[in-house]
């Protein structure tokens, strides 16, 4: 299960950035530009997925966030040639949901704004004309790549999405055997426990006090 560290680490870019007034302004500023460009920011373009509910097992993700991460998992982890552990054998979405639940509520709200922006901005950014959740794989990858070359806010947002997805996949031990990572080994190897070190021998003459004051 995803732990609090993944939460903090995954959202660190946005969590910190969002506290910065100037970037927060930029966030809203970008939203405003998008709103002018494509109509209302919140409904830049309807998606067929808007009418699809999220799985009941998800506690913290909203339906739009579920759809966004679902699409992100599909395009970021295209594991279909049998070389790596299939995504459907790893609880990636459950891990993301749990991670979201560990995030400070105030930061979570900022993240939600950021995720909505990431989804909606695809309508105008790159002239895709569709939200991120509706992009085909090639366009979705291009969207990620262009945002990795974009402004500070774009870099931060696409980093957040990638971290949520990648950390939630690769933290699972089921993903390690195909890449031959050994995971925990001490028990398997029978490594003996040494315990505390004994008190140092201070009988020798090179004690600092002795020499320093000499």
């Amino acid at each position, binding site marked *: 299960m995803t732990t609090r560290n993944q939460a903090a680490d995954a959202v660190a870019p946005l969590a910190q950035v969002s506290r910065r007034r100037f970037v927060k302004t930029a966030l809203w500023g970008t939203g405003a530009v998008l709103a002018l460009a494509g109509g209302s920011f919140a409904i830049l373009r309807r998606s067929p997925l808007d009418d699809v509910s999220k799985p009941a097992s998800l506690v913290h993700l909203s339906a739009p966030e579920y759809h966004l991460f679902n699409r992100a998992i599909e395009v970021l982890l295209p594991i279909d040639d049998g070389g790596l552990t299939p995504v459907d054998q790893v609880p990636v979405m459950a891990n993301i949901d749990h991670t979201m639940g560990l995030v400070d509520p105030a930061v979570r709200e900022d993240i939600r704004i950021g995720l909505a922006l990431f989804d909606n901005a695809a309508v105008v950014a790159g002239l895709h004309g569709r939200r991120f959740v509706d992009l085909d794989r090639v366009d979705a990858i291009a969207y990620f790549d262009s945002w990795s070359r974009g402004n500070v806010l774009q870099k931060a947002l696409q980093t957040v999405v990638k971290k949520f997805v990648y*950390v939630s996949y690769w933290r699972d031990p089921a993903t390690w055997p195909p890449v031959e990572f050994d995971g925990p080994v*001490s028990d398997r190897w029978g490594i003996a426990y040494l315990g505390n070190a004994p008190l*140092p021998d201070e009988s020798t003459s*090179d004690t600092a006090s002795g020499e*320093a004051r000499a």
Partner: protein
Amino acid sequence: MQRIVRVPQDGVPVTEARDVAADPSMGRKFSIKTDVVVVGSGAGGSVVAYEMAKAGKSVLVLESGKYYPSAEFTEHLGDTIHEVYRDQAGQANSTADVLFIEGNCVGGSTVIGACVMHRLNPSVWQDWADNHGLKDLAPDKIAPYTKIVDRWLNVHVNEAHEINATAHKVIQGCERMGFSWRPVERNVKKCALTGHCLAGCPSDRKMSALVTHLPWAAAYGARLFADTHVTRVLERGGRAVGVEAVIRDPKTGSIVSDLRVDAEVVVLAAGAIHTPLIMQRSQLADRSGRIGNGMAVQPFVQVLSTFKEPVYGFRGALTGVQVDEFQDTDGYFFISGLAEPEQLMAVGEQKAGDAHIEFMKSYNRMAGINAFSLDEGSGSVVWEGGLTDGRKVIKWNPSRKEFKDIVRTTALASRILFSAGAERVWLPTFEKMHADSVFDLDDKLRSVDYGINGLYTFRMNTFSPHGSARMGVDPYESVVSPDGEMHDVSGLYVADASLFPTPVAAGPQWATQVFAKYVSDRILARGSNHFLG
């Protein structure tokens, strides 16, 4: 009469928040009187605690992190990192593009470090003696302290079996480039070569404070509280008289109890970020205006490469060799290392889709170098807001010169890996980028523009902030005196990397422990000023 001192076989006696909550005699508010209170139980605080307790002083150590005994380490970074890393490894600068990785547990960063004990070049000590008036830091005077740190913590040069495949690639590259390299010195006893240093050492082979100075201090009677956050230093008439703290439930963050400690001597050893923050919250007199300023961060980037053949660079001792060719001339150093998959994702994997899959499928053919550079020491930490509801702000972004240094260290690390036969080098940039030859490399690196303050250019990290409450002779230029005592507050000492007089090109743990031993001696030498008994 001879005193019998017994070190516990394993673990450290620690009072935790749950113990306080369960003890009705402590209640919601209590006080303790002690000779010395030490804030922080890591590299510096643990040493001071031991030295003071051994000298017969009553000692209380206050640690904000939780107690996580070695027996609970699982070698699964994902399971353990949130228990022992500051802000669950999410501590970052104000623009969130530089991670400040730090331990937050009993034993501090010594618990999660890669065992690197990077000694300072004698020329650094000489510079501090000659050019900063710190005569007692001259190499011949500091040498006894360095010998003790080396001997007590089993600091040794990596032996052949501690040089893993990643390190051998680095050696190969250096030999072809004509670069000087040497095995890393580490504080480990009979290393089990698991490669899981960053998740703590479950077999207690790493000579962290958790298995050395803290149990030694406890053997001499020192007491240790975990989950205890010092809010401020108490001062009366220019003299430190104790601290105030809150004990928090580590799971909920709720306050279990308020604690007041009355002490003859206060030692701050909470690290280069949190020591100055405590000073700022305490609103201590500071003629220098340098509390929290002038912080060096020693940024590093992780340069990864893929080879044609399997390398299994993640197996064996995590850190094998360091490249010291540029250490004295440019302030650069490089340490071999390749961590587990999750860590690679956590530092910001930027590839998407097939490119990511291709990248991870080559994991067993990877080798890595951590490329460090010396910065100008222009970082700062600031406490904003009230005592208990405020927040820390860490400010550091690279200057143009520092940015150029990061570009250069990336280029040098890449060249070493190409010289060792790497087919591809994955560049540590926020933009997805790799190079398949040296010529390709130069073009790619030229395309990384400094932009605005170097924001979101390279994926930088730091393990090594220092110099945020510098030592010096002039109270208008430095925060603490050559004895480690705050210029403007008697009885308040600093014993961590905060007091480094200048930025250094070396990991800070070794020097911090040397300084802590040195400051301990100074406290005891001035005992008549501080202690009644």
